[in-house]
C-alpha cells in the first residue's frame, strides 16, 4: 500500500469505525476514557448481545474435548500439581502454566471452524 493511501485511510477511518450499536449508559469511570472501542471489542459486544458467543463457546468446548485437547491440558495440570504439591498450587498458577501451551496446541481445524462461524455471523449481523 502506498504512503498516500495509508494516510488517506487513517484520516477517514475514524468516521468508518464509529460504533452503531446501542449500549446501556456507561458507568462513570469510562467517561474519562477518550479511546474508541476497537474492532475486536465491537465484534465481541455483537457476539455477546446476540447470544452467538455462548453458542460458539459450547461448540469450542465440544471440539476441544473431541480432539483430546482437554485431556492433554488435564495431564499437564496433574503433572504440575504433582511436582509442586497439592497444597502449593493455586488456580492462577495453573492458568499461567498451561496458557502458552494451551493456546499453541489448539488444532488448526478447530480455529478454522470457529473463524468461519464468526465470519458467517458478522456477515449476517451487518445486513
Amino acid at each position: 500500500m502506498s504512503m498516500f493511501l495509508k494516510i488517506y485511510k487513517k484520516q477517514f477511518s475514524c468516521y468508518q469505525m464509529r460504533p452503531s450499536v446501542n449500549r446501556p449508559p456507561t458507568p462513570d469511570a469510562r467517561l474519562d476514557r477518550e479511546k474508541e472501542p476497537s474492532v475486536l471489542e465491537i465484534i465481541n459486544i455483537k457476539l455477546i448481545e446476540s447470544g452467538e458467543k455462548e453458542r460458539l463457546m459450547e461448540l469450542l468446548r465440544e471440539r476441544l474435548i473431541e480432539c483430546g485437547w482437554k485431556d492433554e491440558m488435564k495431564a499437564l495440570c496433574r503433572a504440575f500439581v504433582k511436582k509442586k504439591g497439592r497444597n502449593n498450587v493455586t488456580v492462577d498458577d495453573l492458568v499461567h502454566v498451561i496458557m502458552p501451551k494451551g493456546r499453541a496446541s489448539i488444532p488448526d481445524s478447530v480455529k478454522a471452524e470457529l473463524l468461519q462461524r464468526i465470519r458467517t455471523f458478522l456477515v449476517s449481523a451487518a445486513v
Partner: protein
Amino acid sequence: MSKQNPSYTNPKPCKHLADYKLRHGLNGFKTLQNCLKTTPYGRTSVSKHKSETPRCSLCFGYQGRLYFCLICSSITCSSHANEHSQSHHGHEIAVDVERAELYCCVCRDQVYDPDFDRAVVSKHFMDMPSNVNGVEGVVEESNKRRRLGLGLELEWKRSKRLISMADRRAKSIFPLGLRGLNNLGNTCFMNSVLQALFHAPPLRNYFLSDRHNRQSCRRRSSDRLCLPCDIDVIFSAVFSGDRTPYSPARFLYSWWQHSENLASYEQQDAHEFFISMLDQIHVKEGKSGNQDKDNRDCQCIAHKAFSGLLRSDVTCTTCGFTSTTYDPCVDISLNLDMSFCPSTGMTNRTTKPNENAIISTLLGCLDLFTRPEKLGPDQKLYCQNCQERRNSLKQMSIRRLPIVLCLHIKRFEHSTIRKMSRKIDQYLQFPFSLDMTPYLSSSIVRNRFGNRIFTFEGDESETCTEFEVFAVVTHSGMLESGHYVTYVRVRNRWYKCDDAWITEVDEGVVRASQCYLMYYVQKGFYYKASEDLSCLPMSPPGGESYLPIAGCC
C-alpha cells in the same frame, strides 16, 4: 478409609472465606442468585446487566478470567483482583463471572463452599422448566442391599466346606477351578464365556454351595429342561479336582434347546451367548412374568450378580428441560475410543487417524460412553416443555453398579455405504484395577454444573466403586471366522484357557491381548474369593510355574 470419594468431601475453607461466611452468612449468595444466568447446557454465569460486556473496573480488559466481588459487585480481572481486595477491606471473596465459582482474591485461588454451590445449582433448577422425571432420583437404597451382602457371605462359607471335601487325587498344583473344556465344533465362543463365569465370585459361590439343587429342581418342575441344572453339573465337574478336559456336551445341547435360532455348529458371538445364558437363567429362576423396571429385586443369580442400572439424560438445547430415564442392564457395550493420541499430541480431525499412533484405553471408552452426545438434526426429540421437536443432548451414566461388571467392546463396524461389516482390531489398553467413580450418575450430573461441592441425590457411597478384573475374553481373527481365548485371574496369577488347554501366563501377555469381553468384580468380592480355595497349595517355591495341562480332544 472413607468410602466416599475424597474429591467431593468439603475442603477446608481459607481464612477469608470463613470470615466472609461468619459475617455475611448466606445473604450474599441469595442476592447473587438474581445476577446468575443459566444455560441449557448446565452452565451458570454471572450476568448483572444482560448483554453488557463485563470489564475489569481497573484496566477495562474483558479477556481472561473476570471476578465479581460479592460485597460491592465490581468486576476485576485476575491481574487486578488482588488489588481490589487490598484497597477495599473485606472485599476478599469474589465469583468467577464465566463459571459462577468462588474465588479468594487474597489467596488467588479457587475456593469451595457447599452453601454457595447449593445456591447456584438451585438457581439452575428454578430456571429450568419443571421436571417430572428429573433429578428427584430413584427410590433410595434400602436395606435389601445389605441383606444381599450378608446372604452371599453365608454362601461362600458353605462352599468352603464343600470344596475341602474335593477330590484330592489332583496332582496338579494349579488352583481349583481350572479345567479345560473340549471344543465340540466351533464352540470356543461358549467355552471362553464359561471359563470366565466359573470365576465370577457370586456365580461360583452360588453353584458350589448347592443353591441350585438338581434333585429338588427335578422334583419341583415337570419341565426337564433346566439350564441352571446343567450349569451346576459343569461347575461340579470343573471344581472337582479332575484335570482332564471336560466336554460340555450336555450343556451345549441344553442351550440349543433354549436358543433354537443359535443352534448350529456355526461360529457364534461370545457376547451374544453370554446374554442368552443370563436370560435363560433368569427365565428359569427369576420372578416369572415380572416386568418391573429395576431388576434389583429379581432373585435369580444372573441378575443378582450382573444387573446394574443405567441412567440416560436427554436435554433440550433450547430450553434446558432434561428428561431422565433409568434402564436396567447386565453389561455395558462400549465403542472404541479412537481419538486420543498421547505421544504426538492430539489427532487432527482433518487427517486420517493413523492406527499405529492411536492408543485406545478402556478409560477413554468409558469417557466416550458418558460424554454428552449431540443428537443429529435428523434425531430431534420431542421436548415436553417446548412442545415440539428440538435439538437435544444425550448423556449416559451409571446409576447403580453391578457386583460383576461385564464390559463389551464393540469391535465391529458396519458400513451402510459399502453394506458390509468389518472387525476393528485396534488394540485396547485396560487396567487391572478399575475405579468406576467418574462414570457414576452422581459424578456425571454433578460435573454438568461446573466445579461443585455438592451431594447429588444420594451419592452411592455404600456401593464399592473399585473393581478388579478376573477374566478377559479375547478374540483373534476376522468377523466371520476367529478364535476366542479367555484369560482368568486366580489369586493374582493369570491362566490362559484355550479350549482344552490351560497354561499359566505372564500378566504381560494378558495386557497385550485383544480384549473383547472384560469381567470386573467389586474389589471386596475379588479378595474374599482369593482367600477361599486356599486349601490347596500353589506352585512349589522355585518350581516351574508353567505346567501345561493338555488334553487330546
